[in-house]
């Protein structure tokens, strides 16, 4: 009966051992040995937690802890948490707050950030030192930055900004910069609309404090982009008699475009995860999405709802990440 095996075809088990032997003896074993630890780490710190967060978001999850040890209880409710979150006005206010925070920050970065990058690219006395100094705020830890702007925006008359404005008689009484008061209070409909969008005095102060720390990295990355533009282009344009504005529009903007868009996508994702500054100065006063998720889980104990919100934020940033990665691969070709 064994004769029925066709000549020239190895039995299956021999093929497998043969391949195993090849794999072990070749250099490929080194490849796997070098790659596997990173994959294990990725699975442990990203994939398992994400799956677990999704599982928690499908139930009324509570966690009871004593001294770092606890127990979890989860009652299956299906997608109810998502329904609750998506039909809650608080969630949508937090969503608009987050969008306001991101859009205004990005507008500042496109205008002022590009401006500072262009400035750093000019020739002037002390340019090297200037480039180093401009970069420094990015190194200041976020919490320190938050504390610093908390002192600047202090609502008493000894807050740094209030002190300056009072001395110059620009204001008569101290302004509470970190108060979530509406803007444009003189014009009711505009004021209501801007509050609906998420704008408030405190939000604008937060944006300024955040930009102090992030404009430097935007400007420095854009400067690196500017330096890749060959000087000959500008020389040729000058020979042709193009004005500075024309040179900016016809050479700088199109050639800076790709790196600008990548920096902006990266910043959008950072803004989605912005937490430290607002949490440090406002606690729960300005509920952007990350604050909302944190508060649901850690101060209300609704781990299911908190997970649902953070899962939604995760999906949102993964969508933006896909745009970013596509852009990167396009740049490569």
């Amino acid at each position, binding site marked *: 009966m064994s004769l029925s095996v066709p000549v020239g075809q190895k039995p299956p088990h021999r093929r497998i051992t043969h391949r195993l032997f090849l794999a072990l003896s070749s250099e490929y074993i080194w*490849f796997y040995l070098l790659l596997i*630890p990173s994959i294990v780490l990725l699975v442990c710190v990203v994939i398992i937690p994400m799956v677990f967060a999704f599982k928690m978001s499908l139930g009324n999850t509570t*966690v009871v802890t004593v001294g770092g040890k606890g127990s979890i209880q989860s009652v299956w409710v299906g997608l109810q948490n998502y329904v609750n979150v998506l039909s809650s006005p608080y969630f949508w206010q937090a969503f608009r707050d987050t969008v306001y925070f991101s859009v205004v920050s990005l507008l500042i970065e496109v205008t002022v950030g590009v401006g500072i990058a262009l400035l750093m690219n000019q020739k002037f006395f002390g340019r090297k030192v200037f480039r180093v100094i401009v970069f420094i705020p990015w190194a200041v830890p976020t919490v320190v930055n938050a504390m610093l702007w908390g002192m600047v925006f202090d609502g008493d008359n000894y807050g740094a900004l209030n002190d300056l404005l009072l001395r110059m008689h620009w204001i008569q009484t101290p302004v509470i910069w970190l108060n979530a008061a509406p803007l444009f209070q003189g014009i009711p409909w505009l004021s209501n609309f801007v509050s609906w969008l998420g704008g408030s005095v405190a939000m604008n102060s937060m944006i300024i404090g955040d930009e*102090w720390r992030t404009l430097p990295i935007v400007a420095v990355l854009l400067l690196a982009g500017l330096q*890749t533009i060959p000087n000959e282009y500008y020389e040729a344009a000058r020979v042709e008699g193009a004005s500075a504005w024309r040179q900016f529009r016809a050479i700088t903007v199109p050639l800076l475009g790709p790196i600008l868009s990548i920096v902006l996508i990266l910043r959008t994702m950072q803004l989605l995860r912005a937490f430290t500054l607002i949490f440090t100065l406002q606690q729960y006063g300005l509920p952007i999405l990350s604050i909302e*998720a944190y508060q649901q889980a850690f101060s209300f104990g609704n781990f299911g709802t908190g997970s649902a919100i953070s899962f939604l*934020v995760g999906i949102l940033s993964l969508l933006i*990440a896909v745009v970013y990665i596509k852009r990167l691969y396009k740049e490569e070709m």
Partner: protein
Amino acid sequence: MLLRRYSKKFLLYASVIVVLLWTLAPLYFLLITSLKQYVGTITFPLSWLANPFTWQNYAVMFTNYTQDSISYRFLHALLNSLIASSATTILNLVLGSAAAYVLSRARMRGKNIITMIFLASNLLPTVALIIPFYVLTVTYLSGWNLYDTNTLLVIVYSSFSLGLVIWIMRGYFDSIPAELEEAARVDGASRIVSLLRIILPLTAPGLLATGLLTFLTSWDNFVLPLVLAPDSHAYNLPFFIYSLNGQYLHLNNEIAAGGLLSAIPPIIIVILFGRYIVSGMTAGAVKG
């Protein structure tokens, strides 16, 4: 014509001065606040010099070392920050550059997909992960006693660095021609020797840039210690600064001193190595 040239120069230097003021005024304010006595921080008009002057805010961070004194907490936070950030840097550089090397060199199906998954993992927001990190640590893994330890922080910090390290380092490995390695191997060097002796020295700028980036992000991390190490052991400098902000009393002068001390290492890194960090970022995360 002459007037136009001078007005252009004037405009240039005026903008330089405006940007310098915007950058340095807050830092100057932090510095003078850290050198004031408390009363100097709550009087109007505010003194814009360190007045009344004292070194005391810095001195309390280093003297009077007893259980739960301010210097005790500061020095522990400093030590924890140094340990956790350095360990994260080393772990991520070793694992990340090994993986990046494979993803650059191996003829393997799906290696682009793997690289992209690593990069995407790095782009996830912190908030999407802190809740499961916390719950997993205190419930299913509570037998491992990881809560409030540097070990836990190092492992979870990696979720925010590993993808970036792999992405940037893969770019550096890709830029080194494979022929260089093959030449070494023809001369009898094994793959590991050629990696260590030939390839790694060539990627040194990339290693420096990614290492410093990892160090800076770990040094800056506040959310993870807030959730995972808030009690007494593994809290880091940002958490220490945050906890100085008392409920009833804002000792701005002490906060400023602690804040400046914790900002010194990253500021030195950025002044000395800023150029490498930027070239690493533009070579990897921001192709330019």
